[in-house]
């Protein structure tokens, strides 16, 4: 092989490739009776989630037929969801320890610069926390999801065995969206808040799942990785931001307010 070609082969052996995801056959091969249906890595929605999402979607569409304010819709969803409790909760699957955040199922690790190339929106960094210690990107939900992982944050303890203090997640939410829905466990409370003048929710206690409409319009449940206090709000530009940490509502809003307005 000529010299240049040999050098290229050697160069290829030292390249940094994105980590190959593990494709599991049970996610690839349709179950009996499901032949012809595409399989995705997103877990299928439990019946309660589908029912709740369908109900919320129908009412949201019905409300949208009139000219109610965005706040009115959000108020209705808040009231409705706050009284809906579920008996069984999905919990994050504990995975072996490794790099910071790697056990939380957040997707593939990237540098911030490379993560930015994977998604179509501009990833914002909270000035209050500074550059993240790790960045993960998931393909799904549709439109992608970016999580900034912080090992330390002033006044915030590290969560359990994860070694993580704060998770800031940006996910492509509804584009025409005036609604997102949440399903909480019995040990969680919900309170409506405002961040950057936009509607948001403070979930306190041990919330396990948030539910929202992804970029393709599908209702999607997303597991809260730390299962602790969470601030979630519509950050504009078709993106939803979520801040998970063992902290107070005020501190979470302080972090959120340190993010640039989209």
């Amino acid at each position, binding site marked *: 092989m000529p010299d*240049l070609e040999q050098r290229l082969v050697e*160069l290829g*052996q*030292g390249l*940094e490739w994105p980590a*190959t995801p593990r494709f599991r056959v049970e996610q690839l091969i349709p179950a009996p009776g499901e032949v012809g249906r595409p*399989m995705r890595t997103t877990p299928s929605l439990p019946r309660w989630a589908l029912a709740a999402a369908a109900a919320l979607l129908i009412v949201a569409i019905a409300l949208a037929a009139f000219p109610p304010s965005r706040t009115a819709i959000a108020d209705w969803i808040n009231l409705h969801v706050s009284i809906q409790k579920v008996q069984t909760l999905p919990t994050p699957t504990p995975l072996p320890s490794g790099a910071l955040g790697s056990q939380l199922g957040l997707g593939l690790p990237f540098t911030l610069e490379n993560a930015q*190339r994977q998604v179509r929106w501009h990833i914002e960094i909270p000035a209050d926390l500074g550059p993240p210690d790790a960045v993960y990107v998931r393909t799904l939900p549709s439109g*992608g999801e970016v999580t900034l992982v912080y090992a330390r944050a002033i006044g915030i303890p590290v969560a359990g065995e994860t070694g993580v203090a704060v998770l800031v997640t940006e996910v492509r939410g509804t584009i025409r969206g005036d609604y997102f829905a949440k399903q909480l466990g019995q040990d969680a409370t919900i309170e409506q808040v405002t961040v950057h003048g936009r509607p948001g929710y403070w979930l306190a206690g041990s919330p396990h799942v948030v539910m929202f409409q992804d970029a393709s319009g599908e209702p999607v449940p997303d597991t809260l990785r730390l299962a602790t206090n969470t601030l979630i709000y519509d950050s504009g530009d078709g993106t939803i931001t979520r801040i998970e940490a063992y902290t107070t509502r005020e501190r979470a809003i302080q972090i959120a307010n340190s993010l640039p307005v989209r």
Partner: protein
Amino acid sequence: MLISRALRGESAAYEEIVQRYQQIAFRTAYVVTGSSADAEDATQEGFVKAFRALDRFRIGAELRPWLLRIVANEARNKIRSSGRRHQLELRLTEGFRPGDAAPSPEAVAVASDERRRLLELVNSLSEDDRKVIASRYFLELSGEETAAALGVPEGTVKSRLSRALARLRARVEQEAARA
């Protein structure tokens, strides 16, 4: 034979196929899309389609090019349907040192610098040139597999590769002359 067992419905056999080829399939999709997110989707959808098309696989043919063709097709569909085009940009692993010898720190630094400069020159080429070089030399795909990955005839791969190498060689010589 794995493929025969998979055709008989043995999911363990298909699992072995997936395990064996998932890395090359994912990296091929990454070369095509330039995005790991799109590559992950394309690989997954490719494996699903390959499973459904197993009965059309010609026994005796090579499995890897067949799989890569399906995955690369999905990757190209992904780009078309999303309208997104990510520029493929490749980086060096820090601290990588080919070979088993233990050269001096100076030699390591020089070799590392040479690799970095060569990669910069590859990255400066056009998208088509980068993709054909990445497929053929970085992924070490065969001519048939490169054709499958890029969605062009094998003859086109040869001519495209030849032109890409000529352009790269010219830039290497230009840089050497400047130095």
